[in-house]
């Protein structure tokens, strides 16, 4: 059934992320009146997941009737991929966990960070994660699923690295991204193979092609890749070690991502695909064995931890192992155990994490060796810890007991091979006992026993903060003792059915009579209690014994190996960039020689046949002169020692290229080349001012004395690369087709399609408009980037750039760029040049469609006039004179660009398609001028360019930009 309301939760959650950013960028959070503004913000933002939760909860009825909801948006119709969502029992179960626990986490985070106004960043990451996670479990298309999967990896990285100033946070985040990101790549390939075999990317279609997939020859490969993704994401052995490291995330994130939601994404993925990929031998053994090892290993390692969060992390790994093992089974009871396990674990583990966070928050430590006896100071927290801890221990009458019972029932299911059934039962009992012991260690060690040093300063947390752990903890109790809630049992059954692919009966009754699982449970509880009683010697023994099981070392060793290998390979890279350049250039020369050997003779032959240089009079003479000047000036810029002279020579070279272009004839290029060349000389000269002369002379003398050998080497490298480029060019020129394939299209269609006479202009603003748009964006970014770099620099020096200075005192002194007084005549010229430049620029843009000229040239022409003003009037006065020159120019340019593009989209159906507004509105305009999208496009380019060049001139022309080195 189509149901577009499925999209609403995403709207809510992603808007909340946006609101967090917007509020964060205002100063509201900094105001410290009364209650912490961040707490208030969190309460308000929590409405988004809450609304999503309610909205999704309303679907329970429909889902329980066996309905499957879908919502899809057109995305890539040509590839038959749509941005679609899908909701059945399994998705809904996870979606409710994501939004429900998400609501509590947001509220909790508001208190956790109440003294940290900058934590809006954390909130917005959390919402981004929430949206990604929700998208992952509700994706109706495997490509969509992949996108959201990667979204969770990236947001998880941001959350773990939230306290990025601490190395542990950075390392933990890196490790998590390294492992889960690798899994993400495997997922993409796996899903592509699945989609390729089944011929569809939509989930409902894939779910219907199980036989096709299982019988495919690619089955082991796709299963292997998908399993790799699931095992890495869900922290299964041997990839489990990233999870404890990720505990350097702030506790709200750990509680949410690393216990309740994200680490279950792998479980969700395999449960989702079980009906189509499961029920094979490979599937059974792979997940049973990996899950079993993870379950026992996680429980074993958890018991020896002293850090509350590390203990919880390992017990999470163990529980994830349980779930993964259950997915391997092919029985209905296993999938009942799966859904019950997912829910029970999410409830008690998020509660315990939040309790641990509260303890950490209030006492300042989460080290069990310093904790103890907190019961008196934090009574409510202690009660919550006991309730959730009992559920973790799997004791009646809590929900966790049911989870363990169904697990044990799965382990002794008669369909299993007899021997393996024993292994599974023994493993489950062991893990259960260890889990009970560590739940005891966690609760008892924190709240009972000798009050540790941390206990003295601790105090009970705010009541509303405790709401977050209280709700899941009490739910664990309520589901256990209250009469069975019908709708929940039905929903769990639907979830299990979706994963199993057949009917599953779910009842939530704790007491099922005296049977084998109950007996095993009693064994596990007795064993666990014994372990708990002897916890001190056991944990001491573990600490001494188990060091070699640590896969972190293997990971570190692998990374070290990679580092060592790359170190060997990159011996040549000693940090001297010039040397790198040499290797790159020499390598290129070598490659070209290698692949063209023996063809030089042939090349010369072709050239002799091909080249006929016919002298056609004065034009050719001019051309020859231009060529000679181009090359001569380039060589001069190499030979001239003084930087200033070399820059001027470079400018001369560029100008003569412009002359060449005029003769070619390429008037548009010539225009741009002229203005850009002048502007780049201006900028280089301004920049030269910023680099102290003494240093430059030092470098120069180093160049001279740098050894004859160095110089000869340079000449050799330069000459050989020049030669090779000559050869490449000749090859390209003589072997290409004489007639261009695409050019005739542009020439023929320029007029009918864009009504432009200037074909070059038509290509730039119409045929390749998107390209130009991006080009201008890049250019604007260069301008903004320059501004940011230099502002940062001057601020680092303690300068106060950009602050309002009292300019009235020194007003209109007309001191030029080096503090020299400029003559009145020059000042008059400078005043006149700007309006003239603007008129010139305007005509360029108005008639640029039919004649050479474009918005870029226009922008640079105006900028040059402003640059002139900088030289004549100096920084202060220019700024005072032309106040309209500011950052919004770039923004308005980009805005007009988008507007023009969108209008084309609205009117003609294609983004950036040409529109003649003048003709549409019947305006009478001067002949030859069309008020068209092309004209507005030029104006937009002009504005952006003007803004960017202003930034360049402004940062380079700033008097304090001179830097302290020069003034000292």
């Amino acid at each position, binding site marked *: 059934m189509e149901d577009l309301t499925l999209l609403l939760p995403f709207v809510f959650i992603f808007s909340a992320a946006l609101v967090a950013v917007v509020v964060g960028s205002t100063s509201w959070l900094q105001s410290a009146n009364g209650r912490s503004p961040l707490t208030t913000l969190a309460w308000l933002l929590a409405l988004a997941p809450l609304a999503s939760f309610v909205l999704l909860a309303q679907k329970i009825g429909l889902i329980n009737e066996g309905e499957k909801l879908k919502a899809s948006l057109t995305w890539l119709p040509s590839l038959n991929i749509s941005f679609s969502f899908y909701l059945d029992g399994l998705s809904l179960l996870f979606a409710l966990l994501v939004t429900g626990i998400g609501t509590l986490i947001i509220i909790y985070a508001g208190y956790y960070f109440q003294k940290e106004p900058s934590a809006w960043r954390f909130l917005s990451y959390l919402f981004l994660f929430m949206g990604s996670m929700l998208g992952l479990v509700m994706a109706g298309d495997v490509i969509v699923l992949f996108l959201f999967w990667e979204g969770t990896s990236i947001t998880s990285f941001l959350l773990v690295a939230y306290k990025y100033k601490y190395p542990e946070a950075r390392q933990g985040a890196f490790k998590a991204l390294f492992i889960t990101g690798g899994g993400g790549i495997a997922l993409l390939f796996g899903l592509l193979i699945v989609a390729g075999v089944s011929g569809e990317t939509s989930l409902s279609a894939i779910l219907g092609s199980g036989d096709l997939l299982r019988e495919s020859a690619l089955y082991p490969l796709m299963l292997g890749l998908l399993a790799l993704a699931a095992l890495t994401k869900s922290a299964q052995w041997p990839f489990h070690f990233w999870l404890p490291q990720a505990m350097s995330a702030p506790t709200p994130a750990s509680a949410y991502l690393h216990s309740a939601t994200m680490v279950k994404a792998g479980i969700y993925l395999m449960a989702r695909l079980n009906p189509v990929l499961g029920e094979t031998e490979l599937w059974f053994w792979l997940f049973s064995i990996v899950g079993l090892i993870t379950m026992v290993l996680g429980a074993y390692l958890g018991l020896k931890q002293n850090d509350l969060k590390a203990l919880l992390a390992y017990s999470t790994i163990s529980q994830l192992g349980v779930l993964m093992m259950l997915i391997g089974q092919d029985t209905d009871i296993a999938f009942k155990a799966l859904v019950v396990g997912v829910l029970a674990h999410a409830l008690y583990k998020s509660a315990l994490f939040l309790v641990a966070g509260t303890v950490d928050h209030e006492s300042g430590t989460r080290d069990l060796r310093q904790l103890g006896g907190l019961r008196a100071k934090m009574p409510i927290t202690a009660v919550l810890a006991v309730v959730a801890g009992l559920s973790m221990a799997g004791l009646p009458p809590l929900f966790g007991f049911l989870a363990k019972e169904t697990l044990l029932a799965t382990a002794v299911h008669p369909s299993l091979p007899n021997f393996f059934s024993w292994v599974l039962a023994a493993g489950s009992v062991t893990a259960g006992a260890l889990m009970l012991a560590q739940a005891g260690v966690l609760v008892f060690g924190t709240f009972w026993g000798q009050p540790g040093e941390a206990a003295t300063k601790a105090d009970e947390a705010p009541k509303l903060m405790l709401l977050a752990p209280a709700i899941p903890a009490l739910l664990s109790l309520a589901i256990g003792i209250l009469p069975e809630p019908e709708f929940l049992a039905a929903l769990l059954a639907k979830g299990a059915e979706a994963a199993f692919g057949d009917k599953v009966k779910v009842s939530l009754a704790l007491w099922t009579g005296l049977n084998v699982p109950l007996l095993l449970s009693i064994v596990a509880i007795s064993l666990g209690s014994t372990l708990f009683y002897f916890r001190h010697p056991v944990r001491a023994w573990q600490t001494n014994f188990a060091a070699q099981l640590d896969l972190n070392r293997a990971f570190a060793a692998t990374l070290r190996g990679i580092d060592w290998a790359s170190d060997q390979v990159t011996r040549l890279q000693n940090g001297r960039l010039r040397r790198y350049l040499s290797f790159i250039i020499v390598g290129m020369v070598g490659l070209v020689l290698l692949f063209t050997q023996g063809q030089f003779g042939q090349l010369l032959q072709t050239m002799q046949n091909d080249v006929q240089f016919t002298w056609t009079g004065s034009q050719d003479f001019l051309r020859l002169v231009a060529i000679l000047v181009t090359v001569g000036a380039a*060589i001069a810029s190499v030979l001239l020692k003084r930087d200033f002279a070399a820059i001027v020579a470079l400018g001369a070279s560029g100008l003569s290229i412009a002359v060449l272009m005029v003769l070619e004839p390429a008037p548009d290029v010539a225009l741009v080349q002229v203005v850009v060349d002048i502007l780049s000389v201006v900028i280089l000269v301004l920049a030269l001012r910023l680099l102290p002369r003494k240093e430059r002379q030092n470098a120069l003398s180093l160049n001279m004395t740098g050894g004859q050998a160095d110089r000869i080497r340079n000449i050799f490298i330069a000459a050989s690369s020049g030669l090779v480029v000559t050869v490449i060019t000749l090859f390209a020129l003589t072997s290409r087709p004489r007639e261009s394939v695409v*050019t005739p299209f542009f020439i023929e269609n320029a007029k009918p399609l864009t009504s432009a006479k200037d074909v070059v202009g038509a290509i730039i603003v119409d045929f390749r408009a998107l390209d130009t748009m991006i080009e201008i964006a890049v250019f604007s970014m260069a301008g903004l980037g320059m501004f940011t770099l230099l502002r940062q620099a001057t601020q680092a020096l303690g300068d106060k750039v950009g602050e309002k200075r009292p300019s009235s005192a020194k007003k209109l002194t007309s001191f030029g760029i080096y503090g020299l007084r400029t003559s009145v005549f020059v000042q008059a010229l400078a005043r006149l040049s700007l309006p003239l430049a603007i008129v010139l620029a305007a005509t360029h843009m108005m008639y640029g469609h039919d004649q050479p000229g*474009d918005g870029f040239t226009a922008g640079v022409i105006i900028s040059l006039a402003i640059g002139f003003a900088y030289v004549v009037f100096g920084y202060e006065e220019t700024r005072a004179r032309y106040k309209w020159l500011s950052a919004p120019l770039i923004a308005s340019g980009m805005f007009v660009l988008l507007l023009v593009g969108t209008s084309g989209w609205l009117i003609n159906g294609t983004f950036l398609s040409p529109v003649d507004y003048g003709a549409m509105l019947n305006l009478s305009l001067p002949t030859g001028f069309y008020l068209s999208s092309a004209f507005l496009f030029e104006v937009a380019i002009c504005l952006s360019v003007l803004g960017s060049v202003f930034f360049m001139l402004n940062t380079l022309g700033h008097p304090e930009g001179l830097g302290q080195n020069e003034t000292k």
Partner: protein
Amino acid sequence: MEMIMALIVGTLYAAGVYMIRRRSLVKLIIGLGLLGHASNMLIFSMGNLVRGNPPLLHEGIDLASLADPLPQALILTAIVIGFGAQAFAIVLIRRVYQRVGTDDMDQLIATDKPR
């Protein structure tokens, strides 16, 4: 003409490479500029080097006599981007200079002041 174009490109390229191999940062920027010129000429020469009319569609013009507009449009973009990159490089170098206190390329082996 092809031969001459190839020689120009080669010479400009050699000059550019020589400059970026030098130790001074200012020379490096000049070298980048020269390499930019060389690349533009290379792209430009890829068009059909006819000496015809500029690519403007006036009434009654012979379409076959027009210079190839495509490489012209391409190098227009290249010039603009090249200039943007060059300007950014200048500021970056200024910042590097401020940070490490040298414009000697061989001293730039760390992101902080040389020991």
